[in-house]
């Protein structure tokens, strides 16, 4: 437990492996990357998330040397690599389209890069066999790329890019075509490889779960800019914008006008912390494993939020003591009491009627601003009787999505707003009392949401 958390980005003395300095990339008059600056550190597992066309591949291609920035520069270990051709960079890329050589066998594809290095034949064979074993392709080594399935091809591409054990490995949606089990296994393989070789990974993925599982940091991109870079738990719990909150996971966005609440001195510090307080175990324990293995919080996030939708993580994972969080969210009765309502933060008046919503963790300087309260569905409790809580909303159940161990209730408030609440199905029958068209109360703590400024 004494081990330090892997967070070189917090250490001002740490030198970044990669540094984008005001990089802009234009295709004609289209700006694909817009004045982007970012540091990526050695041994990081850096994930790029973002909607299609936001410039993820373009960033990778600039790192690989296939595109040159229109302006700005990219430093690799402190050196400007603008003029270095791809074959002279200690960088390997797994292409989104795989780019396997169709005229040579799987084995030869994987050996291709090693042969160029002039490695001894025996060593090449050993390395290729190792890669084949890693990607479970032993049986296909003699086949040509067109004689194997899409998922197998993806693994060949992965094996080929891993074979040279580069300093920096760029993976453009490396696991998209794999089935869930193989994908999860490969994710852990990647993390293992990362650990044993110290390779720095930059990975593009559309799969949030993947980003959450493997990444040391996640960058959310939009229109050629990085909107937020943070560890997976911070991205999830404390998105810095409505865009990020909306992009990562499910969220209720409630618009309103903020008004500062009365503060006593003691709560000032608390108010300055914008992070939505998780209902249990609020301080992230440093994981015993070094990053980028998911820390406890990441695992918790995964298990509680993503697993119901996306399935279990691979069995490699050590079991995590079930955080009592689910209890609070699940049980109807003990809804959070307003008596423990902290001071400070904001009141959000919304749709003019009813009580304002209280967000005690919000930044009071937003006083008077148009804001959005971002509220994760699993932070809401649902009950048939009016609970005694900081924030209570009344509405009617419109729809229930049953997802196995979790159910999402779509509740329409009297004002017409739809709010999603997610409840774990710990007891089989207990939930049956809430059904379609029922009048229900939704409640959440004063610290459950994140208050964000409305985007223009």
């Amino acid at each position, binding site marked *: 437990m004494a081990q330090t958390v892997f967070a070189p980005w917090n250490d001002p003395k740490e030198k970044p492996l990669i540094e984008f300095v005001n990089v802009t990339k234009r295709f004609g008059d289209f700006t694909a990357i817009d004045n982007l600056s970012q540091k990526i550190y050695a041994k990081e597992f850096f994930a790029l998330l973002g909607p299609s066309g936001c410039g993820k591949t373009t960033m990778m291609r600039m790192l*690989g*040397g*296939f595109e040159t920035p229109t302006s700005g520069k990219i430093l690799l270990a402190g050196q400007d690599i603008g003029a270095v*051709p*791809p*074959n002279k960079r200690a*960088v*390997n*890329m797994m*292409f989104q*389209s795989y*780019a*396997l*050589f*169709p*005229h*040579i066998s799987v084995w030869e594809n994987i050996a*291709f*890069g090693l042969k*160029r*290095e002039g490695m001894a034949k025996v060593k090449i064979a050993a390395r290729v066999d190792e890669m084949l074993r890693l990607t479970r392709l032993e049986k296909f080594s003699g086949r*040509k790329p*067109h004689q194997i399935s899409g998922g197998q091809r993806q693994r060949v591409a992965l094996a*080929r*890019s891993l074979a*040279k054990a580069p300093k920096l490995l760029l993976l453009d949606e490396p696991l998209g075509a794999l089935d869930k089990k193989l994908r999860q296994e490969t994710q852990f393989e990647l993390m293992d490889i990362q650990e044993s070789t110290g390779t720095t990974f930059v990975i593009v993925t559309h799969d949030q779960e993947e980003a959450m599982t493997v990444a040391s940091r996640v960058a959310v991109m939009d229109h050629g800019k990085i909107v937020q870079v943070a560890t997976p738990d911070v991205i999830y719990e404390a998105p810095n914008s409505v865009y990020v909150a909306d992009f990562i996971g499910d969220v209720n966005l409630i618009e309103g006008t903020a008004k500062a609440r009365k503060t006593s001195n003691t709560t000032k510090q608390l108010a300055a912390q914008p992070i939505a307080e998780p209902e249990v175990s609020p301080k992230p324990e440093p994981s015993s494993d070094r990053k980028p293995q998911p820390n406890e919080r990441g695992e918790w996030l995964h298990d509680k939020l993503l697993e119901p939708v996306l399935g279990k993580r691979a069995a490699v994972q050590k079991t995590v003591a079930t955080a009592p969080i689910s209890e609070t969210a699940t049980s109807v009765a003990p809804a959070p009491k307003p008596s423990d309502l902290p001071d400070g933060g904001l009141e959000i008046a919304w749709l003019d009627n009813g009580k304002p919503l209280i967000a005690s963790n919000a930044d009071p300087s937003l006083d008077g601003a148009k804001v959005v309260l971002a509220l994760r569905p699993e932070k809401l409790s649902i009950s048939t009787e009016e609970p005694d809580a900081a924030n209570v909303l009344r509405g009617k159940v419109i729809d229930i999505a049953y997802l196995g161990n979790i159910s999402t209730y779509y509740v329409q408030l009297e004002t017409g707003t739809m709010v999603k609440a997610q409840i774990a199905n710990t007891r089989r029958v207990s939930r049956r009392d809430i059904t379609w068209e029922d009048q229900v109360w939704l409640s959440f703590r004063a610290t459950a949401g994140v208050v964000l400024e409305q985007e223009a």
Partner: protein
Amino acid sequence: MRRAVLIAVPYLWLLALFLVPFLIVFKISLSDAAIARPPYFPQLEVSEGWSGLKEFFAELDWENYIFLGEDVLYYQAYLSSLKIALISTVLTLLVGYPIAYGMARAAPEWRPTLLMLIILPFWTSFLIRVYAWKGILSTEGLLNQLLMSLGIISDPLTILNTNTAVYIGIVYTYLPFMVLPIYSALEKMDDSLLEAAEDLGCSRFQAFWLVTFPMSRAGVFAGCFLVFIPALGEFVIPSLLGGSDTLMIGKVLYEEFFSNRDWPVASAVAVILLLILIVPIVLFQLNQQKQQEAEQ
């Protein structure tokens, strides 16, 4: 039933347009020359029945083939045809590959135009185009005039009526057959393959040799066969552009047929030419088949 008919069509086509003519030519090659019309003997008299048929077969022999084997001229003509066809195929490849490569790498909006330019010469008669080369290559021709006016040469070059002119003619004529299959192989190639090669440590040149060229190999083979096969039996180009010492089997065939009116010997020459061509034709077929399998 419908399937059987569908399969039968190409076979009937082959039978009518290839096998039957071949058998006729083969039969003539086994006959004797005669001053008659048609100029060979025996003719099959169906009216004489079984005995006529027996008589007919008794008259056929391998005499003409033995003659071809004894006269060194024919042997030399075959050999020199092979040599000329081979050299011109290599030359066509050397000229055609860069053209095809350039076309495949050109901006997509330009490719149809470039393709058009390659096919354009087919719109004029082949004979006229070969004649035009006479005007270019002759001693007072355009090429010599140009070179002399530029001061590069002082005396006109003798190109016309030499093997060089034949090579030029063949390369020019068959260039599209080389360019098109190579282009189609190169055009299909994904640019990201070259990027991947470079990413894995290849220089541009290595990437060409290890990726681009092998991937266009099927196109190169196809192009080479499409040039080599007709070039071997080429008659018009050597007779219009070649000299008296240009020995090609197509010319020999023509002379036997039309000057000597020795149909049986001419037929024997043709049959042997065909046998020689079977080898590259079969290789060509195998290549096409392999390519098709690879594309599936």
